[in-house]
């Protein structure tokens, strides 16, 4: 191949890469713009509003959204994620209350438990050959029951360093600790994973399982890893709850619903194979800001729920319509 042809090929490839990157991330960039605009609006409403309050409240939800996003990208879904957050939350709270001096090993242990829970979910999905909706629906009950076994009523305790880790900001206001912790952890895990063969396998299995299988991907192992990652992030969510509330609450919060909402807003396709993690995170922050705005505007919480639902419906319909249009051309 002549050098000129080679160069032309490379620039074509580069241009293709840029086009692909901007096309896929255009949605995320749009979301960030919307978030920035909303933040400005919120500050106008109440100048004392601190991004750190939003960040702390959003932390467990954001972890839930990240975990769910990974599973959805691999072509599955995890309806049990709310229960797993509750379970890891109470385990952490109980252990920390009884042995606060062992806080660091306890945190690591809880993370490990999250991974193991995820592995159990994944193995059940693979081995039973029952659709993942049904498996994770069943496990939703199992893990919720387990949480009740560990802690019948809200209780337990936490340690200070966990709380200080996510409270306040790192210098400037736009860098709340909670946000930094979130981005650092997610980045450390996802960025190397995304380009690796395992990461490509996760996308491949979600995109077309048969093609992935025939390409030599170990589909079963990939799915289990995706669920294990969801369990890991759910455990992070549970720890975040322990850190922010200081106790353990065995009743699952609305994390399932919010994680699904975040995925929808974040541009991750429910069919699998497409999307990233940044979009859902921004989505969670946008939803949080909207809720804060509603409160500052004096709107009743009930209306705010309705509005959240309406936003989801509109976004989803618009997104679906755009997909239809694109497919028709």
């Amino acid at each position: 191949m002549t050098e000129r042809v080679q160069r032309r090929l490379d620039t074509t490839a580069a241009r293709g890469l840029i086009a692909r990157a901007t096309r896929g991330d255009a949605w995320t960039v749009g979301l960030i713009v919307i978030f920035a605009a909303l933040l400005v609006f919120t500050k106008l409403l109440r100048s004392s509003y601190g991004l750190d309050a939003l960040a702390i409240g959003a932390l467990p939800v954001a972890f839930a959204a990240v975990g769910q996003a990974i599973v959805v990208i691999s072509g599955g879904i995890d309806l049990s994620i709310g229960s797993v957050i509750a379970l890891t939350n109470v385990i952490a709270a109980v252990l920390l209350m009884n042995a606060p001096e062992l806080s660091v090993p306890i945190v690591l242990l809880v993370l490990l438990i999250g991974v193991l829970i995820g592995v159990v979910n994944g193995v059940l999905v693979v081995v039973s050959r029952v659709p993942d909706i049904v498996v994770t629906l069943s496990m939703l009950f199992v893990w919720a029951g387990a949480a009740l076994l560990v802690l019948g009523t809200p209780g337990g305790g936490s340690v200070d360093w966990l709380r200080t880790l996510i409270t306040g900001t790192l210098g400037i206001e736009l860098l709340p600790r909670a946000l930094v912790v979130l981005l650092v952890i997610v980045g450390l895990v996802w960025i190397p994973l995304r380009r690796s063969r395992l990461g490509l396998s996760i996308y491949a299995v979600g995109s077309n399982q048969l093609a992935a299988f025939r390409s030599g991907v170990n589909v079963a192992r990939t799915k289990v890893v995706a669920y294990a990652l969801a369990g890991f992030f759910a455990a992070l969510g549970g720890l975040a709850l322990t850190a922010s509330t200081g106790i353990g609450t065995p009743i699952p919060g609305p994390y399932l619903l919010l994680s699904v909402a975040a995925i929808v807003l974040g541009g991750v396709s429910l069919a699998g194979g497409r999307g990233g993690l940044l979009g859902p995170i921004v989505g969670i922050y946008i939803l949080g800001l909207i809720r804060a705005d509603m409160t500052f505007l004096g709107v009743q919480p009930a209306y705010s729920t309705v509005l959240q639902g309406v936003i989801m419906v509109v976004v989803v319909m618009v997104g679906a319509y755009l997909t239809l249009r694109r497919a028709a051309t």
Partner: protein
Amino acid sequence: MTAEATARVSPLRTLRGWMRDQPLVPLFGLLGVLVVVLEVVQPGIVSPGWVSNTIRFAVPLAMLAACQTMTMLTGGIDLSVAVVASMTSYVMATLVSDFGWLGASLFALIPAAVVGLVNGIGVGWFRVHPLIMTISMSLIVSGAVNVYARANITGGTRVPPEISWLGGQTLFGFLPNSLLLFVPLAAVVLVGLRRFGYGRLLYAVGDNETAARLAGVRVGHVLVLLYVISAVLAGLAGLIFAGVIGSATGRLVDPFLLPSVAAAVIGGTSIFGGRGGYSGSIVGAVILTVLVTLLTVLQQPEAVRQILFGAIILAVAAAYTRITEQT
């Protein structure tokens, strides 16, 4: 087929084939086992009174399961049925003083139909994933109910005696009155799925939407109508729930959402669409109700009950998959 192949058909394979063609049999078997276990654990509990009670609670669950069965046949799901049911019962309870029980009930079904219409338009026209569409609508509806409740704070709610009679009481002290509504409804659904063109189309759309479209089926219309039917059925179930439980609040039916999906799954309807039926879901609803009784009687704490509930759903679904799968 060669002689070796026919000789190879073992008794186990015949049993599986038979169970696949007559799916109700293993379900009734499971139900029987549960009832026997119940009797063994607490001798004397299985009585006409208990049967009547079980049916009373199973009926509204079975109605919700009908919604799930039909939507699951098309490869969808309706996660808004619980809030729609709650909403209908609540609206009815607030309107009763002004319109009487029948008027209030009919009026209350109108918002249910509207919700179903929006669901149907989202799924059928905009091609939004049913899971997402119905979850979002459930958010909107539960918020709307709260708004309505706030506005209605002075009005108060009342479950009229007619509804209590329908949902809560029995004929001859034995047969729950809700059967008077349920039996014809169930018959319509059962016949509708097997003998009506529309019922066949649900299976067709669930199996292969493209093929259905190429054969001239207007899939969007089918789906819009489907979700309206589902929502209205859910509304009716909500009225029965109000009668059974004796009160009407915005969160009345919430705990029955996931069991309604479970009943359809246990009953053999595939979540991917294209196969299944309502008869299995009815038995599934009864099985779940008996299961809850069993777990209560075993005096297990709520925690263990939840764990066993989940484990059993999974086990039944796994058994089903094994029995009905291709290979």
